[in-house]
């Protein structure tokens, strides 16, 4: 009987499709929520040659949905355990080949040549940069890609085929909401500002050395004046004393006294609000380490209720509790730091989270901002997207249905499908025909971008890291202007001197390094097999606080180029952030919305835009979502 295990599939799909399934070689990128479901569905649908890749390890908070993992797997490779579990459950395991890679897809091992061996790639990713990376490689080697994502009850599946459908980057993603440095450092007015600050402080104290992290300089004790003006400088003489006492006292004194005292003296900042109040360590703790005072706190409205499991994290801790937690977490983190070297912040590491919770709350207290619960801070600091088994199951089922069509080469039948939270406009699933490739897409169509930036202040390092890597998701860019090579990355074959030379180069101002106003810069990434020309336009003022560059996929002359009626009336999307405020996402953006109120014929994916009419209801769907 096991011979006709797939008889049902042959009966329903037909023998031709089934044969294609049996001979297909497919790649699943990501072994998380969607990845687990997808792997199971593929194997039970007859697929037998599957590669799966994930760099992540299993965490306790995965177990509510990633059903291939158990408690005893925590800390192990997701890809490897997913493979093991599927083979264990599956009946003809000797007939099935699953190759698991515990690795980062964005490495040279998995370049275009690796991708070429597959008939189909399926993304089950949780972040924008990997999605873009896979999108570019699939386009370059012309392999069909099925892209998917879930966020809470919402989900989405779409097929990407070079020249046939729009690609993942045809619709620009809204850039991450970034806060102006001065808001974070000097003038916070909302809890999120203090949370961002606390994460930066974590990096400063326990992370890798990073010159761009200007949150505080631990030995700088100037509270008024300029260090070059030796006569008028006022220093906080208590800081060196605190440093002698203990590490935690030093940190506490520095960030909650010295830095605050300096800010409080800048009277022009505090004309309309209460100035921040520096905290004195010794007043909060008696010499034997016991707390001596209790201070009243501003708490956020109303969450102080009833008992229940886990509720502890949802209650806003008192100011004193935050102080204690801060000191304790610094002590422990310092030990970890000494033992393990530089730490990276992880929302699921309780100690790291405690540090950010307490540090941000103490700072909020100082600036008269409401304190937040650990539960809320975790969501804001960790950019947490809710995730459940049900949505992943639905989306994975849809992916496999699209996979059948792709293998049959039926791209005309492929759909982009959106899963809605509740039946809205009479439907729970919203299938729409994929859009055509956008003629102005810099990835799949014209390979041209206009970048407005201050060429007289921006360094090559900023251009590389913040613009090319962070914003445009290049992995390893090579920069040329005309025939001259300006920059090449990679560490493998370089001598120490050459690396130093390059570091020096990175500090150059771009206008002084062959990239003044009106330069066409060519950027190429071999790993992504991707090349783009960037027109650099010098620009000194930007319309939003904190913004220092602007990218558009369109040519300089927009009016002639923009014959696409899809978004012709909302080029002006400067106000987009108003609609996104409630999400307070720090690292990665909301980048897709579904207009659920429109009916069948007009329903289509929309670019994010400011809300223009009052009846339009939008579903927000985060791309930075389930694996």
């Amino acid at each position, binding site marked *: 009987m096991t011979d006709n295990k797939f008889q049902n599939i042959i009966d329903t799909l037909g023998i031709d499709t089934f044969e294609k399934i049996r001979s297909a070689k497919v790649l699943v990128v990501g072994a998380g929520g969607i990845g687990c479901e997808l792997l199971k569905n593929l194997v039970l649908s007859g697929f037998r040659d599957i590669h799966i890749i994930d760099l992540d390890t299993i965490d306790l908070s995965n177990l*509510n949905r990633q059903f291939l993992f158990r408690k005893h797997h925590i800390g192990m490779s997701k890809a490897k355990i997913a493979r093991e579990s599927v083979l264990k459950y599956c009946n003809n395991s000797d007939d099935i080949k699953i190759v698991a890679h515990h690795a980062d897809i964005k490495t040279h091992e998995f370049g275009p040549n690796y991708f070429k061996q597959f008939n189909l790639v399926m993304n089950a990713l949780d972040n924008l940069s990997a999605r873009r990376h896979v999108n570019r490689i699939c386009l370059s080697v012309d392999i069909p890609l099925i892209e998917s994502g879930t966020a809470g009850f919402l989900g989405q599946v779409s097929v990407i085929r070079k020249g046939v459908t729009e690609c993942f980057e045809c619709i620009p993603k809204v850039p991450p909401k970034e806060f102006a440095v001065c808001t974070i450092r000097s003038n916070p007015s909302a809890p999120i500002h203090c949370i961002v600050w606390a994460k930066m402080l974590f990096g400063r104290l326990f992370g890798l050395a990073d010159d761009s992290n200007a949150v505080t300089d631990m030995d700088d004790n100037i509270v008024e004046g300029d260090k070059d003006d030796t006569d008028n400088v006022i220093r906080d003489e208590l800081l060196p004393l605190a440093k002698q006492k203990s590490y935690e006292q030093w940190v506490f004194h520095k960030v909650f006294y010295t830095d605050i005292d300096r800010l409080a003296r800048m009277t022009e900042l505090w004309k309309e609000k209460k100035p921040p109040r520096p905290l004195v360590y010794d007043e909060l703790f008696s010499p034997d380490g016991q707390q001596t005072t209790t201070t009243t706190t501003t708490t956020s409205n109303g969450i102080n209720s009833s008992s229940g499991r886990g509720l502890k994290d949802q209650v806003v801790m008192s100011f004193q509790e935050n102080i204690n937690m801060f000191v304790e977490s610094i002590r422990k983190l310092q030990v970890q730091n000494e033992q393990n070297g530089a730490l990276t912040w992880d929302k699921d590491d309780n100690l790291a989270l405690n540090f950010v919770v307490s540090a941000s709350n103490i700072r909020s207290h100082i600036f008269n901002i409401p304190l937040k619960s650990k539960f809320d801070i975790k969501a804001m600091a960790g950019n947490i997207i809710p995730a459940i088994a049900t949505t992943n199951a639905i989306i994975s089922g849809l992916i496999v249905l699209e996979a059948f069509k792709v293998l049959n080469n039926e791209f005309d039948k492929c759909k982009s499908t959106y899963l809605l939270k509740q039946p809205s406009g009479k439907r729970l699933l919203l299938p729409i025909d994929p859009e055509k490739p956008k003629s102005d897409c810099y990835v799949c169509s014209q390979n041209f971008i206009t970048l407005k930036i201050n060429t007289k202040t921006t360094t090559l390092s900023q251009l590389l890291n913040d613009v090319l890597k962070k914003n445009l998701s290049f992995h390893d860019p090579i920069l040329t202007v005309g025939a001259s090579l300006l920059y090449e990355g990679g560490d493998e074959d370089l001598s120490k001197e050459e690396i130093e030379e390059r570091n020096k180069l990175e500090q150059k101002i771009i206008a002084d390094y062959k990239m003044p106003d009106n330069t066409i810069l060519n950027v190429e990434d071999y790993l992504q097999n991707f090349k783009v020309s960037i027109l650099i336009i010098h620009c000194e003022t930007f319309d939003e606080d904190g913004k220092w560059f602007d990218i558009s996929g369109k040519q300089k002359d927009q009016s002639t180029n923009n014959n696409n009626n899809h978004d012709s009336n909302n080029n002006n999307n400067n106000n987009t952030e108003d609609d996104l405020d409630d999400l307070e996402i720090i690292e990665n953006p909301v980048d897709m919305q579904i207009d659920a109120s429109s009916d069948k014929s007009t329903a289509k994916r929309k670019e994010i835009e400011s809300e223009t009419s009052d009846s339009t209801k939008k579903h927000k769907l985060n791309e930075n979502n389930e694996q």
Partner: protein
Amino acid sequence: MTDTEKYDRQLRLWGEEGQARLEKSHICLINGTATGTETLKNLVLPGIGGFTVVDGNKVSASDLGNNFFLDKSCLGLSRALKVCEFLRELNDRVKGSSCEEDPVHLINEKISFFKEFDLVIANRLPEAALTTLSQYLWEHNIPLVVVVSYGYIGYLRLVVPEHQIVESKPDTPLDDLRIYNPFKELEEMADQLDLKSLNSQQHGHVPYITLMVHLLKKWKVDSNGGKMPSTRDEKESFKKFFISNANSFQDEENFQEGVKGIWKVLQPYSVPSDIVAIMNDPKAANLSSTSDDYWVMVAALKKFHETHQVLPLQGTIPDITADTISYINLQKIYHEKASADLDEFTSIVNSLVSSVGKTLIPSEMIKKFCKNVRFLNLVRYRSLVDEFTPATARSAYMISELEQPDSNLVFYIVLRAVEKFNNIYNRYPGFNDEEVDADIPLLKSCVTSLLNDLSIPTTLVKDDYITEIARYGHCELHNIASLMGGVTSQEVIKLITHQYVPLDNTFIFNGINSTANPYKL
């Protein structure tokens, strides 16, 4: 604490209260098919209290082909037992049990067995047994969820006499700001505003709410004979007036925020019609000691509304441009007003409770109700008996749906005909490969007879669909089973947590073209 960590990503959707409801629930699954197992899998993972699998079948080869959790070693053993064993592995907090009796026998002989459950998921039950079970559960107010995957097609039906929702969690809830009809404290605050006395920094940081209340009052007194702007011209004229009060509209974000939402603000305050319908429900008018807390609170809401012509204030304001002090002050008056409304509402609830002789409703519950009062929801499903009985079936509606090109409702008709077929021949059409062709006309006659019973023109169901379904031969594809398991468990979670609005009442999934439609049958 580890549970909170394990459940962290879902707690952010339904909170502690939703989780507590899930953990209290005991769910029954009839038949451990691939669809049934996948449905339960998605409920065991997030941590329901317990489950019971009722299944008289032994594990067969076709189960191994489509049920991920069953392997060769299970062949010939009780499917209820094996499915239960594997599901229990997924979450040690969930209690699982199995019952190896034939569910049809159980329904006919010992139906009280089902009384203990909080929800029953029925899969592949013959129509007669399903009808009996649904009537029993209906009488006991236990939700029934019917799910089938059949080849490329999925079918889901929810049946609950009355489902009450306090937290419907709409996607983009409108703020309850009362700019159009300000409460006393808000109006007083706005009256004190003297724009001319402010410096430019202050001027650009007056919260737009205060600005709007202040300027609306000024405009209507000075320019409109004390009347609110109602015509389009009046609204435009107010808008101009509003903008003219800015020092520099381009630079003052508070004025820009005001203009952005101006059309919404100028709508007269009204209670949403579905909330009015709930308040006017006879159940709210006829309270007794056995009334649900929900209806007591609805009755209290009605009284509150009769007195004030408004609902209790929600009391939160959005993040808007403002200086800290004005913002905090504004927040405070909304908060205080909401607290006062809650106190009054609570005392109405308490007096109703004591007048009908019920036990007190916990203050937390009253608070939650009051906070969500604008989003209350109520779903009354149609019973399966009403749907199955020709005299009460919604034939006209079905005809209009079937007349649409490529209507997925056609699969509903054919699947019901399949059950008719099974009833007559005691097997499913196309079950044996050799009989597919022979079964097609037999299935067609079942379709015809069903359509005749329902007074639906037989031309509305094309033969292609009948052939397609016969070709599926009653099989379950894992992929469709998994997808339907996802849809079903999602709706079950909505029913159990009483959060979000569940589907009403039928869902058909068509895997051929990945479309799906809800129907109200």
